[in-house]
């Protein structure tokens, strides 16, 4: 029986102190912080580049990675990184912006189905109990050791450094590929490099949120931020702040409640997303008189760019 930790009184400072009493919880908060910052920044570019489906595929690829690592007797984390890296290499030729979007989506979907098939094969070939399949898919935070925390911090530092170096040309190439190419930006190489970076972020995030809930830190905070502001640096900072808030609150709620961390983080980030969309819709209605339901139907993204793209697509 879990002992009743939460006292009847709402002793907030006491509760916060309790969170830091246990080594496993300190590890979970540290790992969650590293993952949240990296996922929010990389995710911001994912949403701008409209590569959400590629991100989804890479997160599903993490499952055969973990199952294959179990089959080979390796730690699950090595399987996550190896499989996501391979997935990015497989997706890179298919991934180009421009008129071939339909072909790209079909190629990515094919890779995704094949990866899941391999995962099922590995899981059934593995003799013995494939412990914690639910944790592989939906995440777990109670078993993170010091080595994992250090690895996650190193991966996050690397990812943020890479964005810091190549963020400006990457943004240019994402928003206006033709213009960027004309200005001498290596658009194709940047796109492939970004997929590898995305694979790194997905593999790290999947260790906390599980393969299926990677989006809750990768895409939801970034989409929420883009509903609030279209300025790049401000948007990334908002995304990081949101990801940190939902991760810390999610871990704290999961600690004091019997419900799993995956549920808390997803529902908190979903709540923020809905609030941001409602706020944007109300502001848009007061600005130009469009009905709020109509505005809610529009996909996220900086409003100005969105309108221009729609017009191009119709022409």
């Amino acid at each position, binding site marked *: 029986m*879990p002992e009743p930790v939460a006292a009847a009184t709402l002793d907030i400072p006491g509760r916060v102190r309790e969170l830091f009493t246990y*080594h*496993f919880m300190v590890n979970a908060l540290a790992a969650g912080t590293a993952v949240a910052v990296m996922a929010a920044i990389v995710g911001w570019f994912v949403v701008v580049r409209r590569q959400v489906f590629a991100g989804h595929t890479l997160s599903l690829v993490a499952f055969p990675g973990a199952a294959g690592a179990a089959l080979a007797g390796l730690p699950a984390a090595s399987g996550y990184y190896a499989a996501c890296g391979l997935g990015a290499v497989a997706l890179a030729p298919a991934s180009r912006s421009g008129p071939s979007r339909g072909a790209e989506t079909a190629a990515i979907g094919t890779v995704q189905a094949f990866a899941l098939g391999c995962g099922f094969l590995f899981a059934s070939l593995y003799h013995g*109990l494939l412990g*914690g399949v639910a944790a592989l898919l939906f995440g*777990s935070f*109670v*078993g993170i050791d010091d080595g994992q925390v250090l690895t996650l911090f190193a991966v996050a530092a690397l990812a943020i450094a890479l964005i810091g170096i190549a963020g400006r040309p990457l943004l240019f190439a994402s928003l206006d590929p033709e213009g960027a190419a004309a200005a001498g930006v290596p658009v194709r190489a940047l796109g492939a490099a970004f997929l590898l970076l995305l694979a790194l972020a997905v593999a790290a995030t999947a260790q906390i949120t599980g393969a299926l809930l990677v989006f809750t830190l990768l895409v939801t905070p970034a989409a929420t931020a883009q509903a609030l502001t279209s300025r790049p640096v401000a948007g990334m900072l908002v995304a990081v702040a949101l990801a940190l808030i939902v991760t810390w609150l999610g871990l704290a709620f999961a600690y004091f409640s019997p419900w799993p961390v995956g549920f808390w983080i997803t529902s908190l980030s979903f709540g923020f997303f809905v609030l941001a969309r409602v706020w944007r819709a109300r502001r848009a209605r007061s600005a130009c008189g469009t009905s709020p339901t109509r505005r809610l139907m529009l996909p996220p993204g900086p409003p100005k760019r969105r309108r221009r793209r729609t017009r191009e697509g119709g022409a």
Partner: protein
Amino acid sequence: MSVVAAESFWGSIASQLGGDRVRVRSVVSNPAADPHDYEPTPADARAFAGAQVAVVNGAGYDPWAPRLLAANPARGRAVVNVGELAGVRAGGNPHLWYSPANVERAIAAITTAYSRLDPRHATYYVSLGRRYASQGLRSYRSLIADIRRRFAGTPVGASESIFSPLARAIGLRLLTPQRLLDAISEGTDPTAADKSTADRQIASHAISVWVYNRQNATPDVRRLTDAARRDGVPIVTITETPVPASASFQAWQTLQLEALRAALERATRR
């Protein structure tokens, strides 16, 4: 001393070996749940963080337990990993508490761990260990010896590999295909050929008794058990963890062994 056991069968033993000097918390103890799919909660992680002695099954049965130990490093904590004591690695048959020899190994290791961490009361732990072996496990041991004497070599069938160590200790001939035993235990699909072999063994009364694990009754297991009932093959129900949850290891195992003996008597009319 605060002790955490990954599963209630080891917890029951650890608690009887420590008497009133230990407080044991068992993580997996719900007889209605399948321990293969267990996911640890924050309360479990707190229990592992505060424990001076941890008893885990190992052998890939509770992969979350070593992770909880690694996430909560502690100086001077004793870890009894029964799989390591028995030399069974992940991928082998992890149902070590169904093997009398491995139960003895675990008892010795737990007593040693208690005596090392609390040397002032070492004689107390050693005497409790002796008493548990001579009195606590008396009917468990005598039942195994009795069934072995009377029924060794009798062909039996079982739903999964959980029964294999006990069948070996008793000297029963477990005829069910090994691959089917492993598949049901590991949660994968048994092959059609193995299923039809198991069907034939029941229909032709090639097995005297059918033993099935109620806590892991997949549709295949239920179908085979129904076939055994229809064809008049005596059925013995066993469980993965003690039932009821409060039962001691030896009370639970003794009841199951008595049911097995009664079924064997009925089948062989002895």
